[in-house]
């Protein structure tokens, strides 16, 4: 086999074309692949992820938050570790390594014709933003859309600039909820579960999507079921440590499954069959 054909871990270069300060400690990076062919190969579906690297520093996993239709891709990064710390020093024009896309995304084909409830917690929002952009582009293929987005404090809210465009669409309800009441916020308060409870849905024709901290996912899936949504129609994106992205390094194991390869999106029915605690 000629050497050039082999690439398991080699990233391709992408240029930072825009940096958006979303919130304290959260930035969105808009990236353009240096070679257009690389974008074609990085043909992702909402919920899939990529591995983004800075040579000499490290590699980190992010789900794309932009629409798969766009030539450029976007990732939202919370500064919590070595690699993300270094990413925060990047300027427009800097290069970052990209490999992927990996994993299975949200089953957007399967839920065609259904109403969709999207519940996001904190920095679990990005993959669901990609989902939402996808649903809005194919608006006629889907029913009603509810988005419930929960954050700890008002400062943590991201994508404020996208809200007005999303709200213009018919039958799209966006609820942003802040955990505790405060002077700077006159919108909804409480946990995301408080707002799922209030939804009036037709459970037989509704799919529930969620991404967020493990504990939140546990309670969200319970609330979805209380509304009558079947476990097969509840799809959750899990977080795990990921290094290789191709089901070899073992870090993302849950029982006999690999989150990077078999997920990161699993139906609640699949999660119930897992042989290890999921949450």
């Amino acid at each position, binding site marked *: 086999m000629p*050497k050039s054909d*082999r*690439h*398991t*871990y*080699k*990233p391709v*270069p992408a240029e930072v074309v825009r940096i958006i300060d979303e919130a304290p400690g959260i930035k969105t990076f808009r990236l353009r692949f240096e070679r257009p062919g690389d974008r074609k190969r990085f043909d992702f579906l909402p919920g899939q992820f990529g591995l983004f*690297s800075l*040579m*000499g*520093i*490290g*590699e*980190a996993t992010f789900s794309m938050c932009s629409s798969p239709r766009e030539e450029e891709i976007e990732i939202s990064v*919370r500064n*919590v*570790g070595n690699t*993300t710390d270094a990413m925060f020093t990047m300027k427009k024009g800097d*290069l970052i*390594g990209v490999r992927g896309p990996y994993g299975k995304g949200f089953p957007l084909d399967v839920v065609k014709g259904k109403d969709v409830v999207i519940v996001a917690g904190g920095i679990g929002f990005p993959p669901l933003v990609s989902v939402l952009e996808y649903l809005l582009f194919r608006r006629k293929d889907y029913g009603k859309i509810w988005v419930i987005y929960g954050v700890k404090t008002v400062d943590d809210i991201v994508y404020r600039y996208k809200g007005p465009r999303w709200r213009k669409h018919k039958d799209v309800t966006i609820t942003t909820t802040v955990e505790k009441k405060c002077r700077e916020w006159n919108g909804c308060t409480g946990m995301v579960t408080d707002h799922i409870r209030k939804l009036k849905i037709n459970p037989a024709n509704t799919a529930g999507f969620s991404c967020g*901290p*493990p504990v939140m996912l546990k309670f969200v899936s319970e609330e979805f079921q209380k509304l009558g949504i079947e476990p097969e129609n509840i799809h959750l994106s899990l*977080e*795990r*440590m990921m*290094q*290789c992205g*191709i*089901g*070899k*390094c*073992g*870090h993302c*194991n849950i*029982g*006999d499954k690999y989150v990077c*390869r078999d997920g990161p999106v699993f139906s609640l029915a699949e999660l119930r069959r897992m*042989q*290890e*605690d999921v949450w």
Partner: protein
Amino acid sequence: MTQDSYYFIEKKDLQGFIDALTLKMSVFAPVRKGRGFRFEKLKNKQKLDLNGYINTEFPPKSILMPEGEALVRYKESMICEVFDDVKKAVFAIRPCDVHAMLLLDKVMMGHGDIEEHYEARRKNLIVIAMNCTEAGENCFCESMETDRLYGGFDLLFTENGNGYHVEAGSEEGKKIIDDSAKLFRKSSGMPAKTKPGCTKKIDTAGLPEIMKKAANSSIWEDTAKRCLSCASCTFVCPTCYCFSLKHEPDVTDLKNGEVKREMDYCMLLRFSKVAGDYVFRQHRTERVKQFFYHKLVYGLENEGKNHCVGCGRCITECMAGIDITEEAAKVRKKYAKV
């Protein structure tokens, strides 16, 4: 293999065979180190000493996944992936370890994604196996049906009297014999395979189903109380393949550097830690369970084969005296009839 695949070599000629092989490629063979043997690359004409060799302390997986191997190299903005396509041979690898390697093949080159660094090394590895005539005190390969080979080798040696019967399992194996033709004579077949005679046993009949019933058993909590989370079991397991990717800049010039593979171990707390310091397997019980279930349950489901080959190394190295055969027996006793 056909009738013409059998040979015999006298013990006095073995060194000559290894010397000839060492001239053609890197040969890894058991070398006496400390209190046992380790696979090491032989130096030219290095004297082979298999006296008292039952198996190595550390499994041969390091030949295929060497600690700290460079996977990606970068210089300024040039990034290239590096592969080891050098021909190598492993000599006197035991059947259990060959089974382990065949299993690693399924993990690293199966499931629709090929780890090409492993593949490069594996394709270029000549496997010269050696049957066991004696079992070590912690061996239980007979229970795992890994005490004999039906393939997966280029040459298979079986000690017999003053020499070795040799079976060629591939054309490449035959060629190696042809290259040292005067040291071998043709033979009509292999001697009947004797059992190594393991004293330890695991009853594997229906074990995965029984273990599934024990998923929340207090057995694992009790074992976790003894476990020191030292990761020795995973370190010496021939089928443990978990690893991490480490970026390592050249300290004299930060624009250059490598991405390396470091073996990693699920027994360690940090193994499942994600950004923000959340640890998914926080409790030792979960980590202990992961080891036993990966070895005896998950492997069967993912690769159709047990991930335990019965080499007994994890028993030998465990400082707390945790024994996978005893754990399996405990589970069977408590849950077989539940």
